[in-house]
């Protein structure tokens, strides 16, 4: 995993210095940006494998930069921020971020998250069902396509992986930890709020009534399960 190109976006020079020293020391290539605007320029010129993005910057903020980068790319984006409110986290994940790390953080933790984000799930599943079809929902895992009532629905890579893992367990409850580790990586397990955000997104996209879901069900205390109509 060494040798990844990482774009560090932060308006604080000391943090950029520290990140450059530690990430380079861990074998990565680093480029820096001080603002959201500069980040977008570097994003096109440097072509990073991963972006570490601060939220609180003058000018174009991190959220906007995140949306702009996500609109044309699947490059993993990890938000690094001093704010740790649930609302901010949800906003960042909504804007297309893959992960959210609160400052201050331990370098080993950040490196683990960088490794997990770079180790994206393969585009075609090695196991599990090829797809799922019911009267109003149609999923084709090989082509990464989802249709609701015949209309194509765009899922982000994380939403898609989440759905695939739930469907692959054939209607059985999947614990939070297992879902997190399957979709985000082996170092995850406590980020149940990620699941809440992404499950909500998923329900909004594939359920007729997201408040009373038919497919993606909550299993209290345990996790979630994909309900196959006709089976209980």
């Amino acid at each position, binding site marked *: 995993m060494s040798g990844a190109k990482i774009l560090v976006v932060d308006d*604080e020079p*000391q*943090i950029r*210095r*520290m*990140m450059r*020293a*530690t990430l380079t*020391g*861990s074998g990565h290539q680093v480029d820096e940006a001080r603002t959201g605007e500069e980040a977008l320029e570097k994003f096109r010129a440097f072509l990073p494998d991963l972006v570490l993005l601060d939220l*609180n910057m003058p000018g174009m903020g991190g959220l906007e930069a995140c949306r702009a980068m996500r609109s044309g790319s699947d490059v993993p984006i990890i938000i690094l921020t*001093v*704010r740790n*409110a*649930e*609302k901010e986290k949800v906003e960042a994940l909504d804007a297309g971020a893959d992960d959210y790390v609160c*400052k*201050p*953080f*331990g*370098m*080993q*933790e*950040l490196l683990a998250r960088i490794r997990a984000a770079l180790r994206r799930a393969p585009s075609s599943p090695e196991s599990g069902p090829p797809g799922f079809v019911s009267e109003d929902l149609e999923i084709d895992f090989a082509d990464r396509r989802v249709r609701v009532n015949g209309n194509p629905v765009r899922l982000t890579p994380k939403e898609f992986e989440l759905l695939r893992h739930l469907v692959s367990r054939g209607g059985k409850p999947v614990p*939070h930890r297992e879902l997190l580790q399957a979709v985000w990586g082996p170092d995850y397990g*406590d980020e*149940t709020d990620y699941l809440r955000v992404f499950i909500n997104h998923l329900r909004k996209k594939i359920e007729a009534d997201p*408040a*009373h*879901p038919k497919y993606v*069900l*909550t299993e*209290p*205390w345990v996790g979630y399960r994909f309900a196959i109509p006709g089976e209980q």
Partner: protein
Amino acid sequence: MSAPLRWIIRLLASVALIGAIVFVYFRLVPVNSTTVALTLLLAILAIAAKWGLTESIVASIAAVLGFNYFFLPPVGTFTIADPQNWVALLAFLVTAITASQLSVRARGRAAEAIARRQEVERLYALGQAMLLSGSVRNTARDAVNSIIRTFEIPAAAFFSKAENEFFRSDPQTLAISDELLRGIADRGEPLLDREHQMAVLPIGLGGQVIGSLGFVGCTLSTAALNALAYLVAIGIERARSLEQANRTEAARQSEILKATLLDALAHDLKTPLTSIKGAVTHLLAQQHDPGENELLTIANEEADRLNRMVVEVLEMARIEAAKLHPDRAPHAIDDIIAAALRIQEEALKDRRVELRVPASLPAANVDFEFIQQVLKQLLDNAVKYSPPGSPLEISAEAANEKIVISVADRGAGIPEEEQSRVFDKFYRGRASRDEVVGTGLGLSIAKGIIEAHGGKIWVSSEPGKGSVFSFALPIFKGELVQ
């Protein structure tokens, strides 16, 4: 010129006018008696219209006497030979009385209209004056002063119920006592004492009395008094709502300012910590001799500690700045407990946690994250203040529209005299403050959060046996969304 003098002059003038007509027709222009009678009648009509009843009656009598003496046969005597002369006399009198009454009524109406117009103008001026006043107090004070100025009365007083304050135009004129004003405001019935020219009116809008207004030397009509009372009520209420709006806005502004400052402070404190922590943890991951490793570990732990303190102090400041706005939604209590247990998994790994949570528990209307933080704090404390390996218990039950959640440990417990103080800011247990790491803010933050939900948090403890921290939260009434 005084009124009686003017009246005497008008009487003399009336008689003089009649005399002049009689003189002209008798000596200068000889005409028949009908023409004389008509001329006299016209004169009486004019006097009645211009001056009034008394003047016209006096003129009528003078006219009858003059007409009789100089023009009616036998001329030169006051004898009335022909009954038609009685008709002339009667005609003069009836004309005088009718015309004068009509004119008096018309003049009265005109005077009344002028008085009303003046009242309306004055009320308008008063309304204008009160609009410019600003605060409730200034408005009340200005209202009293404007009333005596615009209505030209000697004294006025206003009692405001909400402020329980009396506003007087002149402290010397205390004819309207405090008790009287208060009584009228309480009863809501006006007092009109025309004899002493005093009026005390309840002031209110929409049936609610907000105070009372009293005048001395007031000759205003009842309609004008009512209008005045309404005007004052509207002015005062307007000032009050403006004042309230300003206060709310000021509070909101200061809340925003505090929140912004706290955010800036959090950012500024955590940024250098981020660089330190990042650098130290990176170095720690490299190979070092044990001495270097120990020093780096200390630096890392202290950076963590500093961060914890920053977080807790800012959290407390936020709660104190009333910035804590729970994002409330119906949540299942067992979900929150499960989330808190997952967060504390590492700390709880050698503990048996007994759960007593009935499946039928209703949902609570709370902010998930905040309540999870409270539970996390209570679990953290339970672990810190009880012997390693001892069991913990989490229980929840619904009672009286509330859900009560408790975390119990089997630690040393809290002496009774300390139980009321553990929720105080920076307070740390006497027996353990040197052994257990902490800022003394955790429980006061928990208290702030629970109180922001309209709930209650408390502790019961028996020294030697353990402590039970409990909090009550409002139940959500409605259907729970999964």
